[in-house]
C-alpha cells in the first residue's frame, strides 16, 4: 500500500526520486481511498514554477474537491495528461499510471525532509 522507496507528505502526496533532479508526484493509496471515485483532475501546465506546499492540481471525486500540493519546490516538467480522460487511474493505480506530475527540483536535498513510508503509515494510523 505504501512502497518503501517513496517519500510522503502529511497531505497524502507521494514523491519518487528519478534521474538527477526529477521527482514524480502523485497521491497515496490512503488519499484515493478517502476521495472515492475520482471524476476530474485539474492539472498544472508544464513549465510552471512551483514552491513546496503550493497547490499544483485539483482532484475531484463525485462528492469532494481536493487540492494536491507540491511536496518540493522546482518547475513542472511533465504532467500526466492521461488523467484528463481517465481520472479513475488515480483510484486504480495511484503509484503507477495515476501519477500527476514530474517536478524538476531546485534542490534535490529537499526530499530528505519528507516522510518515510513508516512515518507516513504512523501518520495515517496504519503503523
Amino acid at each position, binding site marked *: 500500500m505504501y512502497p518503501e522507496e517513496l517519500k510522503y507528505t502529511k497531505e497524502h502526496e507521494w514523491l519518487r526520486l528519478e534521474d538527477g533532479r526529477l521527482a514524480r508526484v502523485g497521491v497515496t493509496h490512503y488519499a484515493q481511498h478517502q476521495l*472515492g*471515485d475520482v471524476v*476530474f483532475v485539474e492539472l498544472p501546465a508544464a513549465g510552471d514554477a512551483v514552491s513546496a506546499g503550493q497547490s499544483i492540481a485539483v482532484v*475531484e471525486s*463525485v*462528492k469532494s*474537491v481536493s487540492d494536491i500540493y507540491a511536496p518540493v519546490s522546482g518547475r513542472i516538467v511533465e504532467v500526466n495528461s492521461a488523467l484528463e480522460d481517465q481520472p479513475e487511474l488515480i483510484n486504480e493505480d495511484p503509484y503507477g499510471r495515476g501519477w500527476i506530475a514530474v517536478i524538476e527540483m531546485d534542490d534535490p536535498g529537499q526530499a530528505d525532509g519528507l516522510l518515510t513510508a513508516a512515518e507516513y503509515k504512523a501518520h495515517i494510523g496504519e503503523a
Partner: protein
Amino acid sequence: MTASAEEPKRTPLAGRHLELGARMIEFAGFWMPVQYSGVLAEHRAVRTAAGLFDLCHMGELRFEGPDAAENLQQLTTNDVFRLEPGKGQYTLLCNERGGVVDDCLLYRLGPRDYLLVVNAANTDKVREWARARLRGRVTLRDESSETALIAVQGPRSQTIVGRALEQDFSDLPSFWARTVHAHGAAILVSRTGYTGEDGFELYLDAEAAANLWDRLLQVGQADGLVPAGLGARDTLRLEARLPLYGNELTEEISPLEAGLGFAVKFDKGDFVGREALLAQQERGAARRLIGFEMLERGVPRHGYPIVHQGREVGWVTSGSFSPTLEKEIGMGYVPAALALEAGAEISVDIRGRLRRARVVEGRFLPRP
C-alpha cells in the same frame, strides 16, 4: 464541532451499513452511509438493475381527524382534495413570502388519515411550523423515530420488491401506495422515488427494518440489487433534475422560480404563501432554475458563480459528474429576463476559471 454538539442519530440499519463496509457521514443529524462499493458503481446499478437505500432519516408526520384535509389544504401548495385514499402527491410547504419551507410527499392513507413525508433536516421545523397553524379537529403526530423507510429503485425494483413481499405490484401505479402484510410486518408500499427510475419506497416499523433490508438484499442479489448510499442518491436525482432542499429550494426561493409550478394549485383556495406566489405568478418570477451541461471540463459545484456575457448573473445550486452521460452537469439560478433557453451558452466560474456550459431543458436523461 463543539463539545455540546449532539451525537448523530443512528438509523435501525446502522449495524447493517457497518457490516457492509459503508463509509458513514453525518447528514441532517443522522449517521448515514454515503457509499458502499463506490458512488459510480452504485449509481450505474440503479440505472441498470436496482439499488437499496436506507432513508430512515426522512421525517414522517401523521395528520388525523375530521379536519385533517382542510388543514393540509391550508398548509400545502398542491390540492389535497384530489387525493383518494391510497394516493400520494408531491407538494410544498411555503412561508408567507412564498419561499419553500420544505418539499414533501403527502399520502392519503385513509379517509381522515394523511402522512406527510419531509426532509430529515426539516422534520423539527416543519412539525412546529405545522403545529402552530393547525385549527379544529386534527392531530399531528411525529412518527419519524418509530418509522423506517427503505427504498428500492431501478428497473428491476418491481421484480425484487414483489419477490421479497410475495406480492404482485405491477398494478400499483406511480404515486400510489398500499399497505401489505409480509413476514409479520405491515409495510406501506409506495411507487415513488428520487432517482428518475421506477422504484418503491417502503415504510414500516423501525423494529422490522433490518429484517426487510436483509430479505431484499438476499432475494435481490440475482437481479443485481446493491446497497446504495447518499452519494449515488444525489447524482441520480441530479440526472433526473429533481430538486434538493437546501440546494435548489430554500426559504428564499419560490416553487415558481424552481420550476415546480405544477405542484402549486392556485385554484384550490387559500393556502399559506398563496398571495405572494400569485403576485409572483402575475408579474413573472425574477429568477429561473436552469439545467446545464459543461462544454469544457470542470465540475460545477454548489455556490459557484454562473457568468453570462462576462457578467456574474447567478449561482450553481447543484453540480456533478454525471455517471450516465459521462460529462459534468448542473442546475442553477439565473435572471428570468435573460431568457436563457435550451442551447444558450453560459459559463461557470470554477475556482477562478471560466468554463463554458450550455443550457439544457428538461431531464438530463431520456425517460425510461
